């Protein structure tokens, strides 16, 4: 750290201490959380499906892993399918050309693929959100970003929580996270929402039933 940098830090901290001299002592750090831990309790999978659909994701239901492969096959617009480590082989349709991220695929290559197939860390029913944290079957962030079509499998009901307050304690802040609620969208033109700008313009979510 050079001297100027050091003095900027010290000066800002000194300004803060001078400015908030009237702050109460540290015992007052308890926040009154007079809000709900969740707004719903039951039928979370149905609500997740409804809210995802509301934001223009397409939702499918699979009763068994083999059904996933059939659904994926029907969704693909071309064979080049990015498949991160940890995606079960049973999900991958035979007609797809699975591209593994070993060695790491560069952005230009990713840009030429047709889709990416992943699992997720969890999904939030109330807000219609799926969360990726780079865990098994999810890959690094670029894999679900550059391809124009993201197919995501959610294991139901164990990966579905009701609300954001229920989701955060299950997530590890030291992992990179991407929360996704529908495909890429913008409201920048006359504040009308239109889908599809830079992120994947198609988001397909497959809800895979538990006992499978």
């Amino acid at each position, binding site marked *: 750290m050079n001297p100027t940098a050091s003095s900027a830090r010290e000066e800002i901290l000194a300004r803060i201490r001078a400015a908030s001299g009237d702050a109460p002592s540290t015992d007052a750090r308890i*926040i009154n959380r007079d809000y709900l831990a969740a707004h719903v309790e039951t039928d979370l999978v149905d609500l997740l499906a409804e809210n995802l659909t509301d934001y223009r994701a397409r939702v499918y239901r699979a009763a068994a892993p083999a059904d996933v492969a059939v659904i994926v096959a029907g969704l693909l617009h071309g064979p080049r399918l990015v498949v991160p480590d940890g995606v079960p082989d049973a999900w991958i349709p035979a007609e797809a050309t699975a591209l593994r991220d070993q060695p790491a695929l560069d952005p230009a290559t990713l840009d030429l693929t047709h889709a990416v197939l992943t699992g997720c860390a969890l999904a939030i029913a109330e807000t219609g959100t799926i969360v990726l944290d780079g865990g098994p079957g999810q890959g690094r962030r670029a894999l679900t970003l550059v391809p124009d079509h993201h197919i995501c499998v959610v294991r139901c009901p164990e990966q579905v929580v009701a609300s954001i307050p229920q989701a955060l304690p299950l997530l590890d802040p030291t992992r990179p996270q991407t929360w996704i609620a529908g495909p890429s969208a913008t409201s920048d033109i006359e504040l009308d929402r239109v889908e599809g700008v830079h992120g994947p313009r198609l988001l397909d979510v497959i809800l895979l039933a538990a006992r499978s």
Partner: protein
Amino acid sequence: MTGVYVGMPAFPTAARAATRNAQLRANLTRATHTIRDRRARAVAELEDWEGLRQAGKAIKDETLAHLDDYLLQLEAKVTEAGGTVHWARDADEANRIVTELIRATGGSDDQPHEVVKVKSMATQEIGLNEHLAAEGISAYETDLAELIVQLGDDLPSHILVPAIHKNRTEIRDIFRERMGEWGRPAPEGLTDTPADLAEAARLHLREKFLRAKVAVSGANFMVAETGTLVVLESEGNGRMCLTLPETLISVVGIEKIVPTWRDLEVFLQLLPRSSTAERMNPYTTMWTGTHEGDGPKQFHLVLLDNGRTQTLADEVGRQALRCIRCSACLNVCPVYERAGGHAYGSAYPGPIGAILTPQLRGTASELDASLPYASSLCGACFEACPVAIDIPEVLLHLRERVGREAKEHGGHRLERAAMKAATYAMTHPAVYRAAENAAVRARKLIPKKVPFGAGKAWTETRDLPELPEQTFRQWWKETHR
């Protein structure tokens, strides 16, 4: 703050032009009313909204009360996770730090320095793009609205939707005329449908994303407890910038901290509904330092003061630092709707700008001194604010400050005298009654249009009421004694 707004006229003058621009008025009315109604519905879905709002307020107040502790905690966590933290006292220092960091990433005459940018209020505030341009570094805005503003050589006029003052046809014309100068031109026969315009932006920016080595961002939240930064967005341009380049530089105001990871549960509910009226925005990215094998290899966090500590020193005004930049106050503000964002002369327009800008910059300029008066005190902003900033209260507080500072320089003399005279008359009933009686007697003499001062401002568009033959007080005497 930045030089780009210097020399702007005071608010009433700047607003005058906007009120007479029918196209602008129509664009703003349509856009603000669309989002206003949708926000109300999104908020109504949550029965505990007021509880979330009060918790949001309390968390931000706690952050501000112990900001030094939280900043040090954040610094330690970010550093531990592989990031580097820089501190900037003002805009110049922040711009210098960012420039040096970009230069340090290499580049040459063959490969000139360029960066991709995620929409960021902080870099807007410090005029980073203009500074980088002067240093020979191209900064490409990647948010659709920021792109429209940048291509159109324009200024942002809204926090969430910087190009809100442009309609689809105007945007199409800007894309057709200017995209080619910056990179891939607009497709042949581009129409003005939002989907086509979004597609044009996708094609134009994709090559920039795929080759970018450095990105510059802001952040919506920084978690002190974990060192995590959070960016909420919709289009995916944020994910592109935050994920693909080798180096990421985030410039963030020191007040953007929340103490704990858990605190995000409040703001991730408050912000999307207040800002885009969604249950959840399409994309939220969270990162903590650098992550092996995923995303940028270098992460720099530039913590920005630039007037925030002087705002913190004001007991009434500091609540403006709770702001999470949702722009709900702009969308419900009748003054913003008519005056447009440019009249506010800063990166922060609307009600929040009217209290934030004069505190960050001070009230020395005519424009900044006029901002606290740019409100009818209707209170719609306070009602909509997800962190319960009492904007009318701060406006009045700043009006007092402007009046006090003007007194020191001999300004506002007539107004101060008038206010004092009114108080004198009203605390001396005989004087008051005499003045009233004189007014009633002279009522036939009051002209329809008064040629000067406040009377002129009033009677240009409005008739004065015809004064009655007797005051209430006179009637009471006649009938009740």
